[in-house]
C-alpha cells in the first residue's frame, strides 16, 4: 500500500516537472514561458519532497522533516522570483504576443518609450494641446 502511494507521488512529481520544462521550451513569448515552470516548482517538486518525507519517515525511526523545510522555502520564494523576473522583463520591454485590449488600441499605437518621452516633453511645455496620458 505504501509502495503505491509513494509511486503515485513520485510519478506525479516527475510528470509535473517534465511538463514545466516542456512549457519553458514550447511556449511562444516570455510572459507565457514564465507561467510554465511555476507548476514544476509547486506541484512537481512539492510532490517529490512529500514522497521523500513519507519514505524516510517510514524507513527510519523518527519523523524526517527536512524536506518540509525545502517545500516551505520553495513555496515562499517562487512567487517572489517570478514577480522580479516579470518586472525586469517589463522594464526592458520584452515584446508580448498578447492582443491589446479593444478600448486601448489608439493609445498603444506608439511604443511605450515614445509615450514616456512625450509625457516628459508635455511636462516641460504644459500649454501643449495634444493629450498623451491615457484616461484611466
Amino acid at each position, binding site marked *: 500500500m505504501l*509502495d*503505491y502511494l*509513494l*509511486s503515485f507521488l*513520485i*510519478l506525479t*512529481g*516527475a*510528470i509535473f*516537472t*517534465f511538463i*514545466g*520544462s*516542456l512549457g*519553458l*521550451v514550447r511556449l511562444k513569448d*516570455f510572459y507565457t*514561458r*514564465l507561467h510554465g*515552470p511555476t507548476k*514544476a*516548482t509547486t506541484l*512537481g*517538486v512539492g510532490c*517529490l*519532497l512529500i*514522497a*521523500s518525507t513519507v*519514505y*524516510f519517515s517510514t*524507513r*527510519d525511526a523518527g519523523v*524526517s522533516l*527536512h*524536506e518540509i*523545510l*525545502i517545500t516551505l*522555502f*520553495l513555496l515562499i*520564494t517562487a512567487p*517572489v*522570483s517570478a514577480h*522580479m*523576473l516579470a*518586472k*525586469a*522583463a517589463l*522594464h*526592458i520591454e*520584452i515584446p508580448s504576443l498578447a492582443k491589446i485590449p479593444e478600448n486601448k488600441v489608439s493609445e498603444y499605437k506608439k511604443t511605450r518609450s515614445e509615450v514616456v518621452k512625450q509625457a516628459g516633453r508635455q511636462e516641460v511645455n504644459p500649454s501643449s494641446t495634444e493629450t498623451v496620458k491615457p484616461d484611466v
Partner: protein
Amino acid sequence: MLEIVILIALALVAAAVAMSFWRLLIGPSVPDRILALDTLYINTIAMLMLLGIHIGSALFFEAALLIALMGFIGTVALSKYLLRGDIIE
C-alpha cells in the same frame, strides 16, 4: 515496483533538465535565460531528492536546501541587476 518508478521519474527529470538547458542556450532574451537557470535549479532539487530515495541516503537534503537558497538569491540578484543596473545601491 518503487525501483522502476524511480528510474522512470529520473528519466523524466533528466529530460526536463535537458530542455531547460536548451532554453538556456537558445533563449532570445536575457530574462529567458534567467528563467531557464531558475528552472534548472528546481529540476536539480527534484533530481537530488529522487537520487536520495534511490540510494537510500538522507545526506542529500542539506545539498538540496543549499541549492534552493543560492538559486533564489541568484535569480533575485540577476533580475535586480536587469531592473536597476546595479545589485546593491
